[in-house]
């Protein structure tokens, strides 16, 4: 491993690390606003058309959504463990936890694509293949439009996260990180946790509207 030195504008690695964290949080603030506009559209639609949204959500697979939630929450915990391990110089454990996080992320993607397949087969894909004939047809179509757009953007973020994690795994394996320098691991963990937080709000929005 080569000795890591801070960039010219920083006094030391600690200062560089804090600046990097600040930059990452600034990026995440823009992401909050990116998803925020989608959630605002969702909130307006749900407030205007509660009956249609209740009817539409009856077609959501709660079991699948619940398992997906548990898988993502677990991946956040394993990512936190990976970051912690690298901070304490435990490279092997960090690599193991990063790989477990990747496996959980991949499992989520497979499960979610399975959910998409199920909805498309049911004829609930807005515009292209929408054959729903029950009451509140247009409201149900709006619900599924929002469902596909919002969850697809989330899925895209997850796929990006998975690619970054793959790079982090290789860098960890090649001994790039140490208790003195672990900024990329920490920033990746922040991004991964943010993607998890987005799902935490998507889950009640599309799976838990009303099950009574």
């Amino acid at each position, binding site marked *: 491993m080569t000795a890591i030195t801070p960039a010219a504008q920083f006094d030391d*690695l*600690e200062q560089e690390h*804090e600046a990097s*964290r*600040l930059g990452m*949080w*600034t990026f*995440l*603030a*823009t992401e*909050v*606003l990116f998803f*925020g*506009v989608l959630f*605002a559209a969702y*909130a*307006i639609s*749900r*407030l*205007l*058309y*509660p*009956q*249609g949204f*209740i009817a539409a959500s009856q077609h959501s697979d*709660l079991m699948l959504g*619940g398992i997906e939630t548990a898988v993502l*929450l*677990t991946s*956040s*915990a394993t*990512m*936190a*463990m990976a970051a*912690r391990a690298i*901070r*304490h110089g435990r490279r092997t454990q960090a690599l193991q936890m990063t790989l477990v996080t990747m496996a959980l992320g991949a499992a989520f993607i497979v499960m979610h694509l399975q959910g998409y397949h199920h909805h498309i087969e049911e004829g609930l894909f807005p515009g292209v293949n929408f054959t729903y004939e029950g009451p*509140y*047809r*247009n*409201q149900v179509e*709006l619900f599924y439009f929002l469902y596909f757009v919002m969850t697809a953007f989330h899925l895209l973020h997850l796929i990006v996260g998975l690619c970054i994690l793959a790079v982090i795994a290789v860098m960890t394996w090649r001994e790039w990180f140490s*208790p*003195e*320098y*672990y900024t990329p691991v*920490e920033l990746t*963990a*922040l991004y991964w*946790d943010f993607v998890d*937080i987005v799902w*935490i*709000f998507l*889950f*009640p929005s599309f799976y*838990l*509207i*009303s*099950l*009574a």
Partner: protein
Amino acid sequence: MNTTSDHSSIGVLGIWITLIVLAALSIAAAYLPIGSWTWIITYPIAAMMALLIMASYMRLRSSTVIVRIFAGAGFFWLLLWFAVTLTDYLTRPHLYLT
């Protein structure tokens, strides 16, 4: 670098268990016979889960004040955005989909 404020492995596990319990509570709340109003319970639970993740896994609890301010700024702006947008939509006549 500073690792003194690091949470333990047991701490990570404890937070994970709390998150799973909160998710289960959220599912249980969806079975209440209050129609679409379940959001009154499910979203505050989601907000609690998000805060827990931000404070612990994302280490905001041990971050500098400036990082906390930046982290909060996005959510504060989102709050303003929702308040102003919903004020408009909820106080005007609108086109109703069938």
